[in-house]
């Protein structure tokens, strides 16, 4: 694969409600920041990929709201409806095709504007599943229990993810929920849908994120230290929840295998220095860690207990605080890429993982992580 780098990033602060700002306002903010970060102008961008979702935005053709604000006038542009990691994947392919030298990828979402239960209920099969009343929380609870029971992972081990990530968030100015809590706090928080409790769950968030991808020749001329794309992969699992064994992150295993092959990674736990994983719920960081091959199946509970994924550990996971500390849907995957970019540049300030050279960013799509996208980045 030809060398492509991330040369600019921009994020809003993630908040519960940005009621004063439109989607266009959020997009303009992060696009401007990303361009400034790279030290280039909109005229240096030759194509754009926007990421948005018509259900979350309450608008058919949700990308229409941000056409002016994303700088797409007179340019080739497209829209991915899915997690930001998938949008970035498309942006990368457009450069690799030889048609473009720089893609601006921007995602936005305002969870505050719609009804989370109704919107996520609409993910499920309209003929067979919606009527039962599933939404993102209850479906994830089905997955959490299945995973925990099959592999003997405990609620306390899941709670450790919440403790670690909310603590990491204290050092991330973009995070929405940053706090020092204990396992007991998590265990005593309101039960939402067994075994998921309030502090096991990510919040509703508003925000946007932009990244700029560029060909090598351009990446070498810009203001920032380029962060190179070394490997990528994505894959999808079956749809009906009953078609899957929810304890088996089949699609993630396939996506990771592809990304690792491309990046030449054989022992991910040893070779990767920092990872940003889509922990919409605490159990997900553990389940996805297994799918990513950081440990054997069922051992992620032990992994977090060992401190290996803490800031000072062998493989710090979610130094940003993760999705559990800010969950603008769709944006969240792109924010994972942005955080890994920050880490590999060495710009992590209070949350810098020392000597990080190789990083992993991960995004999910669909119910219970039906699809996954994995990025390996290198400084």
């Amino acid at each position, binding site marked *: 694969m030809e060398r492509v780098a991330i040369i600019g990033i921009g994020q809003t602060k993630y908040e519960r409600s940005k009621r004063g700002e439109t989607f*266009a306002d959020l997009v303009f903010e992060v696009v401007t920041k990303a361009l400034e970060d790279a030290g280039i102008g909109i005229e240096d961008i030759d194509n754009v990929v926007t990421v948005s*979702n018509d259900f979350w935005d309450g608008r058919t053709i949700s990308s229409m709201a941000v056409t002016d604000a994303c700088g*797409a006038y007179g340019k080739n542009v*497209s829209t991915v409806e899915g997690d930001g990691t*998938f949008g970035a994947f498309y942006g990368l*392919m457009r450069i690799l095709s030889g048609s473009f030298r720089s893609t601006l990828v921007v995602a936005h979402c305002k969870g505050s504007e719609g009804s989370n239960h109704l919107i996520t209920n609409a*993910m499920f099969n309209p003929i067979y599943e919606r009527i039962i009343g599933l939404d993102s929380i209850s479906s994830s609870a089905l997955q959490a229990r299945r995973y925990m029971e099959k592999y003997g992972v405990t609620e306390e081990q899941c709670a450790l993810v919440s403790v670690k990530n909310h603590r990491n968030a204290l050092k991330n100015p973009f995070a929405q929920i940053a706090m020092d809590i204990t396992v007991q706090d998590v265990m005593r928080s309101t039960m939402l849908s067994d075994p998921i409790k309030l502090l096991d769950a990510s919040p509703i968030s508003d925000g946007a994120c932009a990244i700029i991808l560029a060909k090598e020749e351009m990446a070498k001329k810009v203001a920032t230290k380029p962060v190179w794309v070394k490997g990528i992969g994505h894959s999808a699992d079956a749809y009906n929840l009953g078609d899957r064994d929810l304890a088996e992150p089949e699609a993630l295993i396939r996506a990771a295998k592809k990304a690792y092959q491309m990046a030449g990674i054989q022992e991910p736990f040893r070779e990767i220095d920092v990872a940003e994983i889509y922990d919409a719920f605490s159990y997900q960081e553990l389940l996805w860690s297994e799918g990513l091959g950081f440990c054997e199946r069922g051992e992620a509970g032990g992994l977090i207990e060992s401190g290996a994924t803490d800031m000072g550990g062998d493989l710090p996971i979610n130094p940003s605080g993760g999705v559990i500390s800010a969950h603008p849907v769709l944006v969240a995957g792109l924010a994972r890429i942005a955080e890994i970019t920050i880490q590999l540049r060495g710009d992590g300030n209070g949350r810098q993982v020392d000597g990080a050279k190789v990083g992993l960013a991960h995004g999910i799509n669909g119910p219970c992580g039906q699809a996954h996208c994995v990025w390996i980045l290198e400084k």
Partner: protein
Amino acid sequence: MGQRVAIVGTGQTYHRSSRKDVNGVELIQEATARALEDAGLTRKDIDAVVIGNMDHFEGINYVDMWSIDGNGGLHKPIMKVTTGGTTGTTVAIAAFYHVASGLFDTVLAIGWEKNSESDTTAAIITCADPFWERPTFGGAIAGLATGALGYMHRYGITERDAALISVRDRKNAVKNPYAHLREEITVEDVLNSPMLAYPIKLLDICPRTDGACAVVFASEEKAKHLTDRPAWIHQVSTRHNYTFFTDVDRSGRMPTLYEACMEVYRNAGIKDPLHELDVVEMYTPSSFAGLVWIDALGVCDEGEAVKLVSDGVTEMDGELPINPSGGVISTNCIGATGLIRVAEAAMQVSGKAGEHQVPGAKTALATGFGGCHWSDVLLISSRKPS
């Protein structure tokens, strides 16, 4: 640089106003299976899937995930792209970049819609700004009507002139077994059809269709083993210049279509599109747009389209046949509509269009229209790109 990309197979459902015998996923599967069969492939040969439609048309969130049983993407990379009416062409363009990138060799592009499952106009209205535009906006029909009236005023065209487009496309559709509306109509039929939103009448506008289309894109290496008649993708272009409907510049040729066409011609070295193109599959949402926007293809001077059409230039036996398939006026399963243009253009240059084949067609243009007067353009040819 990227690898060359060709279309090696296409599949469509038999388009109908309502397909109650299948759910959406089963409808998609019909098109997917036909495209695979046409390409001589099985599901296992597919490296990735790209799919698109409009969420609020069927009320399904994450359509790429929902459709996995029918889209062939189980345990494969799947991506959803969506841009309104342009979705179908957007899907095709995304599939093109998937292959051109070198990351995938065989990619399935799918567009679909089951318009029978909701009120299409209600769903389309939700594409407008919720506060400033939705209260007045009467969906595609009304929006296109305000455009049509502007064209009548500016170019002096009449309702009768526009009707020629419906008559031409519906005549062509008779020869296309997949088309939805397959009866010939006359100019009088169009003029006498019920007025929907002045000046657009029932027969000036596209129907609501249940249908799906799938297209297999392949790298040069794969294509050469699969077919001796690949349809090569030479150029693609997209313009989404507007955010509010009221921002659209209506002073000259349809701006995004014109810009996208000019970019494609410039990059392909086309100087005289009227003679260098052999056939066009044009996204004509209404007869009026289908008439006036011909000038945005750069095949005549601004405002001269009516002359081209009345001279028969765009008929099947004319210099530049437009919409041999019967076009959007005959079939409109919205998320598939743009992809059908691409599939039909590919069928033409591969000589696979059967009864509606333009003899000897080598180079075809496919266009997409949607969103806020946005456009996509693809240039497809039987000649391998240099």
